[in-house]
């Protein structure tokens, strides 16, 4: 993951990703994913570029992006730790996991550790209820995290 800050670099990279999705029937969502993957978040400059490129209004791209919690408007940590808070996991002690994670990382939900290593996010069901409580570090899911929270946190901060 890289974080581009320069406006013209953001525009250029966004345009490159958008152009790759030209011709799709609904190119906006895959493009937003592409931008987030490439830049780590979706800056306003990228949204303006997308509105212009796909001939949409600024409001429309903002509406779509803001609907999905996973799209970030600000850069996050190098890694993202998502802890499941849905019913099955709660029943298996997810609240305690969350509290411990917050405490050990020293951040609240949606916050990033001061060293920029990890962002903590809640998530509602990872489909891993059989191994509850569950969590996800970047793209990888982990089961029974109550038993291995420290390992997971260490990995997250590495």
């Amino acid at each position, binding site marked *: 993951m890289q974080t581009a800050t320069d406006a013209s670099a953001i525009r250029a990279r966004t345009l490159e990703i958008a152009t790759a999705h030209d011709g799709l029937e609904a190119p906006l969502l895959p493009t937003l994913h592409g931008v987030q993957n490439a830049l780590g978040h979706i800056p*306003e400059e990228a949204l303006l570029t997308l509105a212009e490129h796909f*001939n949409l*209004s*600024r*409001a429309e791209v*903002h*509406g779509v992006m*803001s609907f999905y919690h996973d799209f970030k408007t600000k850069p996050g940590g190098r890694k993202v730790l998502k802890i499941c808070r849905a019913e099955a996991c709660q029943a298996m002690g997810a609240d305690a996991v969350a509290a411990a994670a917050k405490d050990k990382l020293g951040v609240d939900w949606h916050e990033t550790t001061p060293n920029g290593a990890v962002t903590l996010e809640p998530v509602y069901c990872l489909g891993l209820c059989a191994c509850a409580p569950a969590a996800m570090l970047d793209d990888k899911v982990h089961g029974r995290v109550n038993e291995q929270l420290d390992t997971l946190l260490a990995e997250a901060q590495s």
Partner: protein
Amino acid sequence: MKDFIIPDPDFGTPASKSTNTVTLIIDGQQVSVPEGTSVMRASAEAGIKIPKLCATDMVDAFGSCRLCLVEIEGRRGTPASCTTPVAEGMVVHSQTPKLHKLRKGVMELYISDHPLDCLTCAANGDCELQDMAGVVGLRDVRYEPGENHFETRQNGEANPAYQPKDETNPYFTYDPSKCIVCSRCVRACEEVQGTFALTIEGRGFDSRVSPGMGSDDFLGSECVSCGACVQACPTATLQEKSIIEVGQPDHSVVTTCAYCGVGCSFKAEMRGEELVRMVPYKQGKANRGHSCVKGRFAYGYTSHKDRILNPMIRDSIEDPWQEVSWDEAISFAATKLRDLQSKHGVRSIGGITSSRCTNEETFLVQKLIRQVFGNNNTDTCARVCHSPTGYGLKTTFGTSAGTQDFDSVEDTDVVIVMGANPTDGHPVFASRLKKRLRQGAKLIVIDPRRIDLVRTPHIQAAHHLALTPGTNVAVMTALAHTIVTEGLCDEDFIRTQCDWEEFQDWAEFVSRPENSPESTALLTGVPAEELRSAARLFATGGNGAIYYGLGVTEHSQGSTTVISIANLAMATGNIGRRGVGVNPLRGQNNVQGACDMGSFPHELPGYRHVSDDATREVFEKIWGTKIDDEPGLRIPNMLDAAVEGTFKGLYCQGEDILQSDPNTKHVAAGLKAMECVIVHDLFLNETANYAHVFLPGSSFLEKDGTFTNAERRINRVRKVMAPKNGYADWQVTQLLANAMDAGWNYTHPSQVMDEIAATTPSFANVNYDALEEKGSIQWPCNDAAPEGTPIMHTNGFVRGKGQFVVTEYIATDEKTGPRYPLLLTTGRILSQYNVGAQTRRTENVVWHDQDDLEIHPFDAENRGIQDGSWVRLASRSGETALRAKVTDRVSPGVVYTTFHHPDTQANVITTDYSDWATNCPEYKVTAVQVSPSNGPTDWQEDYAARAKASRRILPAAE
């Protein structure tokens, strides 16, 4: 809908256009409606009201509020009536115990996150949420206070979910705390206005209406302030500031907007004699319930402090004004005019009718000139805008008017927009056009500038032919060349409807190699292949309609271009049915009417030449006087004659020729040379700087009458308050006429309309009773067409056979050269109107407080011009200074500005060149040079000083 005064029924969902009928039973009542109608609308049409919040008939059904649930026999659950289409034999129950319970529960949830300040709320008495709470019998809310959006503070801390009011728009506020997230505003912005400036951001409890992106406010967003969202809002979330200030209106009157030629119908909502707000009228056939920022909000000029309410006179234009009584002003004017005539001859005076005044007022001014002055020296501002339309369409089709109604756009497949900028100049029509384009119609834009329609959210023109200013005819002929040589003409149509011989001459002419797109590309700047594709699209794409504006007419070949447009429509068979036609977009509210009413020096009402004995006889009989059979002077001729010393007096009603006519210095010289200039206007306009008599005018709110819009639709203008100046304009004209011994005794404008009908065949069956009954009438309306004529030439052309006319391209004499290497073209902007006399006196100035010069980055860089810096704009006629706006909307070599502000005086720059047939000035092409500058030019400073001096007013003598 907020229509509690004249209940404008809201059927919840739009009407279906199907011709098949479906019959169903709702609450025991048998109902028959068109297929595709929603259960909600079917119920509403039968008088059964189903509770609703997110549905309104200006937008498509959405199904989000869950209040309009019904039970349908044989179907499971409780479907939403707004999204459920009717089916044959369906049995619907709209009120059952189960539904009552569900609805009450839904309302309880809504109210749990809504402030209960109904008594002090601006929407009190006009709130659908309040109404629905009553309808479902909500008596208490069981939810305990918790997280919400409306409390500013919670538990002693600021409520993070509370957002303060957005008051940035000058005309309405957005109060998020009152929002129920029904999305009606978002959908109105998308479906009705077509701007897509609003969205719902976030999801679930976080869902909020957001203008633009998160960092935008209403003013900074893409919002064009059309008011559709305010109209759609069921609560006080989006609310007119005037309602917040004044309170709810107590009655309303349907009238017609006095801005552009679209002629939107509005309800003037009143409290006593005070105008509270203007609301677009759903039954208005031009606008179908839509509006723009001008008609909806910019009426503040009618009560602006600059309005002059007392008559004034002065002996010399160097003197300050002296306020006098009406009697004194009128007799001063009448005596002066008669003296001038006795000294310099009957033809030494004349008048200018107004395209902003009513048909009746215009008719009386030309009658005053023809009957009382005894000459034909009458002209109107249509001279400087659409006179070529009159000439061109009369020559080819036989009538001086557009062929369609605005509804016709709903059936169009390919649209050519030429020399017009509808999103700014005719915004309500633009919204209707954009709706059709989003449904799949194709668009071809022919304009030197990249207007918004070329590319704007969800709209993309198939072709933009960005021609060099002044080459309209060459482009049109090249389009015709492609259609003829590629065998794309509609031969059946031409053989049956048009003169075949003339067609063949024309076809031979356009087919010549010198008229091919390849030959003319160098001249026009339009790539040949692009032009050929556009021509093929227009000829083969289905119903083709052409809409055009002043970019067509205001050229030395304006009439030729209009003729070439007519030729193209005939050659492709695009005349005489819905979805096609030739449609001039008229600039001012009553340009069409002013032309119809005989404002031109050569034509009596109904476009009949003054040399025609039979026509003169009709008027001579009623008016009891001889009518001059020689055409009179056109505006430029009047000014020339004034400079020469043979034209001495002018009555100018509601028209600011000094600012709007070309070559300001020449106009000023002409006016200065006259001995009696009478200006009849709301404000001391620029022309009044040279006037001797000022007669205060009345606004469109203060008089009865009719306006005729671009689709020939005669709409009623209704008086909602007494004239602040004492008299309606038609009464002032009558006072002047009677002071010159005319002996008129009209007591109501309807009598003038009766006189028009009695003398003018195309208005034969028009009268106020018929207008009251039908709402509006499109002329011709006579025994042959008693209901009026929405679409013309349906059974052959009015003139008999459609006439093809050869249109040879002749370059204008206004040419670029080393000293003046750029071409200036002019246009309009959404928030301002014409010379700005009205809109500059409203809050609309927040969007456009000065005229800018658009210049391409290439030309700007060459000259060292920065965005926003002062530049000097010079032509052979004069020079002015204004601020530069560097943009690639214009091509290199072309610069563009608007003419809304008098301190810019864009017409100091424009030249004397004009249309060969009608003298319509060539505003759209002027060779200029642009250079960096420090500020206003000497001319602007001198002019400002002179304007200030000539506006001094002495108090009335005691």
